[in-house]
């Protein structure tokens, strides 16, 4: 925490090595979170890329009241939600499983390299409703408490617990069937 505060201080002073340290410290965690939330590596890469670029541009005005890690995680989640909302708005009829599979094929950039298990996990997670998926990903990837997730989703703790429970049941069944295959 203190280390992050020093990093932010130096980052705001325009010290590029501080930016490098922040970038190296959080890029994998943010990429993992984006990949499991969105299921498509290319889009996840774009989201995390944009988050870091926007963060870098905010050096002169950023004022963190909480932790740097939470700030970056929130930025990723907000962008994922915006992306899903926009893609829902523009979605054409006829989107089916085949299209989803195509999105797993990698483009030329390949910033994030997923092992088989992560690819399987992110694919299974996409079968869950987004709200359930977000609760599970935040619990598993960021170790947030239900109370913190509830505050983030503007829901009651019970609603969040319910989403977690139902999501876990379905995810387990999906993963079991995938492993059996």
């Amino acid at each position, binding site marked *: 925490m203190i280390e992050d505060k020093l990093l932010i201080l130096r*980052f705001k002073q*325009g010290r*590029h090595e501080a*930016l*490098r340290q922040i*970038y190296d410290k959080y*890029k*994998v965690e943010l*990429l*993992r979170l984006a*990949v*499991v939330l969105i299921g498509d590596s290319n889009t996840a*890469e774009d989201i995390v*890329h944009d988050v*870091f*670029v*926007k*963060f*870098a*541009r*905010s*050096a*002169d005005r950023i004022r963190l009241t909480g932790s740097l890690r939470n700030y970056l995680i929130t930025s990723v989640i907000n962008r994922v939600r915006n992306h899903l*909302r926009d893609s*829902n*708005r523009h979605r054409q*009829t006829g989107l089916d499983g085949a299209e989803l599979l195509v999105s797993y094929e990698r483009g030329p*950039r*390949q*910033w*994030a*390299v*997923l*092992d088989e*298990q*992560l690819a*399987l*996990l992110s694919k299974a997670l996409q079968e869950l409703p987004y*709200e359930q998926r977000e609760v*599970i990903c935040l619990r*598993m*990837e960021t170790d947030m408490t239900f109370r913190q997730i509830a505050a983030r989703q503007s*829901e*009651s*703790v*019970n*609603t969040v*617990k319910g989403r977690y429970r139902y999501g*876990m*049941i*379905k*995810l*387990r*069944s999906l*993963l*079991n*069937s995938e492993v*059996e*295959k």
Partner: protein
Amino acid sequence: MKPADEIRRFFKNAELGIDPDADEKVFKDVFGAHKETTENVPAMPEIWRIIMRSRKAQFTAAAMVVLITYLCLQIPKSLVAPAYALDDTIEAYNSIRYLHVKSFWMVAVEKCDLESWVEYDEDGKPARFRSQASWFSTDKRLGPATFVQDGDGSHTWLPNLNFCFRRSGESVLTGALLQYTRSDVDPKLVCEKLRQQARDGEIILDVNEPKQKNEPIVLVVTYPAESRSANWKKVLYIDQATRLVKKEEKFEKRGGQFQLERTTEFLDYNQKIAPEMFSLDKELPENVIWIDLSEEVGLVQGDMTDEEIAKEVISQVLQAFIARDFNKAGQLFWGVPGFFIEKLLGVNVLKKIISVGPVYRDPDPDLNLMMCSCKLILEIGGQYYETDMKMYAVPVSGQPGRWMICRMFGNSKPASGEMIPVE
């Protein structure tokens, strides 16, 4: 090992690597953005700081803030009258511990009513509930049914038959009923779902807030043309003072017009329900026939789609009817014992399956049912009948990954032509 631990291990073991070349390219973009920002600091903050060094400027700014605040406070309340929002109702339900509701709907020409009492725990989770249905099936011999979940187990009491089904823990039947009762009737869940659907653009929400305080706020929910529920409409009547739902009506469009499908009235909120309501001990006769329900219900979905598993479970139950294997049919139909299925079928004998399918999702926005049209030949009292049967498959409540048959009904007419032998 707990399921959560297994999933957690799955998350921990899943790895993400970074391609160094692509990584440098991304960082170059990030670095460029940082450089651009730090080298082009806007002049405005500096100017502002210089201006604010003046005492006069500081005084003027402070006076402006006071003036704006005063003006904001003077805006007549009528201009900012609080518009109704679903959040108001969701918030209002946070303090509800007891609920008493009554629903009415029609199955073919039969009217059915279901009255439910639900007690919630401090976390808002249903702890105990009781539902009374006017009849269990259109076959009136089965009579009414009472479902009770007391927290430790569940009972389904059919007084006409003197049967009481029981299972420790949450039974599939009461679990499904509770799930249904809650998702369709629990106003908080209904409103939470509507709020989410409105955010996702899945529904069109029209709020009509009358000026007269004694009239309810009317929420009309319709579904976009591309939705599976495009022919459905829901109307919620909300008390203006308490923000609690008083009544819900569901309509389905038939013949170009919306027809009332189901009415739910919320009779009491937070009226303490007597503990005896959640127990059948004093109601059951001494000679009641106890029936323990089977543990595993339905079929495993595996890698089948919802349509495929629905068709499979429906096909298997029909094959079981033909083979007169009622135990198997019962296992696929709520997990009830074979003799009960035999009783349900009565004099109907399934002789031949002509077709099964197509399968599609039921358009009712509140149900997750797969519906399948089947053409069958039944023998009833020595006479053959062609029957169009609608069969419904559903995920088994409390048994993830399994599907069962939850209801079926059909219309028969005397079969024409010569009968083909059963395959």
